[in-house]
């Protein structure tokens, strides 16, 4: 049996899945000040009177690191950054103990300026004397050659509990994002480690001695032991869990919109060929732009509880939520009240909704029913318009070859899966105004926890080879190998796949889940003078985000329920 748990803002959803489908689904209130207690009570209640030996998988999606970052509850950490020529490193400052140091490496990984050991040792002493225990070290182009970061590591390692290196974050080129991501890893490391260690220990005390998996924002999971090196990869996993929960019920291989219509916001994502589309740059959180892989989502401030107003004769929905719908005792009219008045929603006090809509009807000079319909219609149209702009944004992503520009895949969803409280009341009208097929995700109320339960391990490997310099490297994997002049694209792909397999197993994957694919493969002849002097090869492979093997049976059963 599998446990999936997703911590939300108000409630934490927990499901227990077996070959028979959903054995049990519960909600426990989230205590944002004591997530440990929230998670444990959720786990306790779901396994109550269950044979613990039968549980073979536990996946947690929490807001632990997200909250720590959002509320700026992070310990003091040190950052040592070497930029070399280009934009001055001072512009990428992440925190007060941030030091820009000497040292430079160029775009092909050649050293331009060496590290200054004296400078590094001085900073190290200073950080240590301030009581700092965790340090991040980032160098520009460290993904081409990590030597400077490794040298700095050697110099400071004995003085700190943990040192995070920029090149281990991602093989992607983006120095400012590498700095931000390394900083977040360093800063959330202690709370992340302490929290999950405690969860794992208390599960072990109950007799559940299996590695726990943690949800990531790319719709995949990783085991706790691997997450301590990349703790920031656990941020913003909630929307990903919902998308993965819907994926279990995706119609077929066609492009599909997934729209999670909540109280305050609606999150929109796109499935292509049964996998969520990922954001190519990395997720952003507040002012932090990171290299953390994530599902491409578009979040808009429109939901069932959005405040409804009439401004200059026009209906305005949101962007704020003042309270619940009036039907449920809230202070201002909302789209949920409109649905209550129209009768598509059965619960709540209709009279209160009507009284709330009197003024809106008055301002629009129409009947209350007509006003309710206009508000409902406007809400649906806003969501479809935003879905359209997400699709446009995806299709407008720049590409760099003629082939991709002329023949690149264009997303064209003609189907949508919706979830969230108002979803069942909105499906019909969304379908009518958009002309695309709209279905409600079965068991949408716990789709997030189902998504967490069924998501497979995901990972990515970026391999870079430069045969003129005779090297192939995947710095993120600490992989560096000499290659000869004959090394080519095919060999590079095999090498990348082998690294990906090893990495996936380390993250907790099982053999049958290893759906590997090449997502980028480029080979350039390097010409100097009039002669080809080498090949420059760039390969990117991934485990496609998706569901674990058992999902077919489980999803089949869930759909029939």
């Amino acid at each position, binding site marked *: 049996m599998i446990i999936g748990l997703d911590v939300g803002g108000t409630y934490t959803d927990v499901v227990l899945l077996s070959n028979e489908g959903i054995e049990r689904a519960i909600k426990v209130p989230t205590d944002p000040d004591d997530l440990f207690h929230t998670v444990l009570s959720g786990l306790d209640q779901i396994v109550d009177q269950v044979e613990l030996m039968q549980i073979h998988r536990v996946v947690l999606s929490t807001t632990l690191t997200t909250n720590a970052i959002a509320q700026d509850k992070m310990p003091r950490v040190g950052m040592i950054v070497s930029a070399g020529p*280009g*934009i001055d490193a001072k*512009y990428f400052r992440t925190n007060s103990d941030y030091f820009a140091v000497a040292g430079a490496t160029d*775009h092909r990984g050649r050293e331009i300026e060496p590290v200054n050991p004296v400078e590094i040792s001085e900073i190290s002493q200073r950080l240590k004397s301030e009581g700092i225990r965790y340090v991040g070290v980032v160098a520009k182009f460290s993904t081409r050659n990590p030597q400077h970061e490794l040298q700095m590591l050697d110099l400071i390692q004995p003085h700190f509990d943990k040192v995070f290196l920029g090149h281990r974050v991602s093989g992607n080129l983006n120095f400012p994002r590498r700095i931000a991501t390394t900083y977040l890893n360093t800063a959330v490391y202690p709370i992340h480690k302490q929290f999950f260690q405690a969860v794992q220990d208390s599960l072990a005390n109950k007799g559940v001695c299996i590695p726990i998996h943690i949800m990531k924002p790319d719709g995949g999971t990783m085991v706790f032991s691997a997450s301590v090196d990349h703790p920031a990869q656990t941020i913003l996993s909630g929307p990903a869990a919902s998308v993965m929960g819907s994926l279990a019920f995706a119609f077929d291989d066609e492009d599909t919109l997934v729209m999670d219509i909540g109280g305050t916001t609606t999150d929109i994502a796109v499935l292509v060929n049964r996998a969520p589309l990922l954001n190519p740059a990395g997720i952003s959180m507040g002012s932090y*732009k990171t290299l953390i892989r994530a599902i491409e989502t578009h979040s808009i401030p429109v939901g069932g509880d959005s405040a409804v107003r009439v401004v200059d004769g026009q209906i305005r929905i949101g962007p704020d939520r003042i309270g619940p719908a009036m039907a449920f005792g809230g202070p201002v009219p909302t789209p949920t009240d409109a649905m209550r008045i129209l009768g598509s929603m059965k619960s709540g006090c209709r009279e209160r909704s009507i009284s709330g809509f009197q003024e809106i009807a008055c301002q629009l000079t129409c009947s209350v029913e007509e006003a309710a319909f206009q508000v409902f219609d406007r809400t649906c149209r806003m969501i479809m318009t935003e879905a359209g702009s997400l699709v446009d944004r995806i299709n407008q992503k720049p590409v760099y*070859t003629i082939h991709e*520009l002329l023949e690149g895949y264009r997303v064209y969803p003609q189907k949508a899966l919706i979830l969230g409280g108002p979803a069942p009341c909105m499906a019909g009208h969304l379908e009518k105004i958009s002309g695309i097929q709209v279905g409600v995700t079965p068991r949408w109320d716990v789709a997030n926890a189902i998504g967490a339960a069924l998501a497979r391990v995901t990972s990515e490997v970026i391999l870079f080879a430069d045969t003129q310099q005779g090297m192939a490297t995947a710095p993120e994997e600490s992989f560096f190998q000499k290659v000869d002049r004959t090394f080519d694209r095919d060999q590079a792909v095999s090498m990348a796949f082998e690294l990906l397999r090893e990495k996936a197993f380390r993250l907790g994957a099982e053999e049958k889940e290893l759906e590997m694919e090449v997502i980028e493969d480029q080979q350039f*002849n390097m010409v100097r003078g009039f002669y080809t002097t080498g090949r420059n090869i760039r390969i990117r492979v991934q485990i496609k985000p998706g569901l674990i093997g058992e999902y077919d049976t489980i999803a089949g059963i869930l759909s029939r329920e």
Partner: protein
Amino acid sequence: MLTAGRTTGLVFFPAFDWAISSTHPEREERLLYTQDQVFEEGLLDIDGITEFKPDLVTVRDIQRVHFCVPDVWSVATESHFISAGGAKTIGMAVMDKRVECGFALVRPPGHHAMRVVHGARGFCNINIEAIMIEYIRQAYGVRKVAIVDTDCHHGDGTQDIYWHDPNTLFISIHQDGRTLYPGSGFPHELGGPTAIGYTLNYPLPPNTSEEGFLYAIEQVVLPILKEFQPELIINSAGQDNHFSDPITNMNFSAQGYARLTSLLKPDIAVLEGGYSIEGALPYLNVGIILALAGLDYSNVKEPNYQPEAIRQKPEITTFIKKTGDQVLTNWRNRVQLGEMAQKKKGIDERRRTLYYDTDNIVENQHETIRVCPNCSGVLKIDSESDHTCRILAVHIPVGACEECRNQGYAWFDSIKKSDEAKAFLQDRPKDQYLEK
């Protein structure tokens, strides 16, 4: 947090699957390291810098500028449609006020492509700046445009296209034509009889460095631009003046390019040449983008940059100042020179032999213009090459007077349809292209 002082649009299209030939300077690898540097610096994440995906230009956009022989598809590949499309996309983003300025970092380049195109010259097939400018004129009604071509090679294609257009000021700064392809671009090349002084050439001696380039911009180009008052300033931003460029002999630097850009403040910059793909382009492009966006570029330096080692000699400085005076004098005398040309005759002719080095084609051209007191004058071109067919082409310019329009149609109608020659008519006032 970095925020651009001036919102800046970027089209980055390195055409990683296109080359003139596998070892040609214009090959797949050209912008590879530039891409690495631009990505690693995180330029596309900066607030106020927006990357746009290029649209393709249409055949009509190309025919607004060129007479392609025998037709557009025979001289332009998809890559040219995209590269010109990248310039057009940036042009539209600026005109629609989505950004204040923009840079089309695209390849292949275009500034050696002339009005008549039989093939590729100087790595260029179609003139991507001219196609963008004429689109902007058509769609947004812009009249006065200035093009400052800072590529190391003379922008002879752009010069040819705007030779007779007094509403387009073309200024080219380049390595002296006696020492570099295409061998033209001397100060006495000033434009046709109806547009004298609106083509200005400022050749610089080999080994000119920062001091010389910045002198040319500050002391000569900027005062001229100030007087001309263009609605748009376009920079043909070639990057081959760099001290490490393998096919030229200049001593310019990343700091110099960034400074030049912040002085010139172009509305739109379009990449042209530049073939020091590892040692220069990554740094120049970062410098240019930062300068356009009004950001601090003081730390952008290429690895082997030693300002003392590339400082220009005093005699070079003297030479540059002398040439600059000559350019300014030509500009100040443009009205007088124009009046003299107008008096001379009703028809002006020029005969030229043009060589297409990239495609090894020889073209013989006979151009006839009506020297009109009321407009820039209708133009007729008779062109033939050793590779393609002969063409007879008529260009009726924007703002043509009634007489010139009639003359243009009379010329076109008088051409007999034959197998040996094709006839083309560009009617710019009506935005039409006819052929027979």
